[in-house]
């Protein structure tokens, strides 16, 4: 009798183990991190409120470096503005108004990870600010990630520093482009792949976003080439040192492609 109840207990424990393990794997496979952000919205907001407080404390100690970064970014923007003003003077007789391709929204990071295989950020902008899943997140010195989920006041960003995340990037000189992925070791390095072997890539060459995806604007400087090597005999792999330091990231921009609905509509027309 005892043997039978012992056997039943063992079998039920094994079944319970299988159920719980399968449930866990299902959550991982279904990218539960994004789903979790969608559900329990109020609890998530409370948690994000806590992250905001701790983020405020750490940003206080980083004020000097943040200030220096903003000064550099401001200088870059002023130079860009000057170029546009010069171009505008030449075009002042034009009668048409060009709608900008992308619109931007600044956001502050309240949570950021760089040491995991699937990194993420949480920013203090949510659906009430017009943020939606699928929008890109950038800085003046690179791409950061894609909005994965939103609550009313916060958004979850899937970092480019994550397994399976790809950014379309190109070499500034030749324009040769390929997918750029994170090898998972250093948060300041990525790998630009599928560059043809005949393209000369030297250390120090700038890498830019290609603009071939509808998520990120083209020509954002992302990093510079460190080393190049031939991969599988047919293409090159380039180690890219990122300009943006993800460990000290504080302010980002959510970017919306204003033509995205039109592009998606076009895709839907293709059989």
């Amino acid at each position, binding site marked *: 009798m005892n043997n039978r109840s012992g056997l039943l207990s063992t079998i*039920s424990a094994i079944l*319970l183990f299988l159920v*719980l393990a399968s449930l*866990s*794997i299902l959550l*991982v496979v279904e990218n539960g991190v994004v789903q979790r952000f969608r559900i329990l919205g109020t609890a998530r907001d409370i948690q994000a409120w806590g992250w905001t407080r701790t983020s405020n404390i750490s940003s206080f100690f980083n004020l000097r470096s943040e200030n220096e970064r903003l000064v550099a970014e401001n200088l870059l923007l002023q130079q860009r503005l000057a170029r546009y003003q010069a171009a505008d003077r030449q075009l002042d007789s034009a009668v048409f108004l060009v709608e900008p391709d992308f619109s931007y929204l600044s956001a502050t990071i309240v*949570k950021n990870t760089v040491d995991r*295989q699937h990194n993420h950020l949480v920013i203090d902008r949510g659906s009430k600010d017009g943020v939606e899943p699928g929008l890109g997140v950038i800085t003046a010195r690179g791409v950061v990630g894609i909005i994965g989920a939103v609550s009313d006041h916060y958004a979850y960003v899937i970092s480019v520093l994550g397994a*399976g995340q790809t950014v379309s990037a190109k070499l500034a000189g030749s324009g040769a482009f390929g997918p750029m992925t994170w090898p*998972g070791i250093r948060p300041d390095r990525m790998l630009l792949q599928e560059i043809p072997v005949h393209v000369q890539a030297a250390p120090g060459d700038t890498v830019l976003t290609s603009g071939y995806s509808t998520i990120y604007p083209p020509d954002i400087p992302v990093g510079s080439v460190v080393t190049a090597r031939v991969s599988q005999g047919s293409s090159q792999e380039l180690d890219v040192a990122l300009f943006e330091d993800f460990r000290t990231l504080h302010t980002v921009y959510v970017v919306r492609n204003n033509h995205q609905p039109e592009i998606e509509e076009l895709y839907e027309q293709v059989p």
Partner: protein
Amino acid sequence: MNKSHSILFFVLVFLLQLVISNYVNLGPWIMLSLMPFLILQLPVQRTPHIVLLSAFGLGLLLDWLSAGVLGLNAFAAVVAAAPRRLLYRRIINNDRHDETWIPLLRDAGFGKYLKYLLILTGIYLAAYILLDCVSVRPFGFILVKFVASTLASTALGLLLGYAFQRRS
């Protein structure tokens, strides 16, 4: 250590794990986890069903509160909790049947306690790292991360085990 102190210690270790998961960045090679120690801290005579459910709940709570990938810690905790009783009987068994007894360093002996904690930590981290990295990272990276994380987490677990027995 009475029951309330054990519970308080358990909660404090879980809070420490939350702080580590949210604020301690040791780079891609080392992952510090106190979850195996927490699984070890569950009373010995609890049925496997309760241990499995407790481990799953703890793992899920950690995943949620540390904003990691939901299910990763839960999976690893369930995998580590499953052989716990078997490991305990094989390594530490000293015929204690007190319902709330939790193995102490001094009762089990340093060698046996270390072996028990090391194997439990190894199982936990193997499950976690494999599910997190397999097919997206090279085997060498996975192996180094597993070894470094197991050693570091076991060392931290030993320190906590020492602190726990001093309080008892």
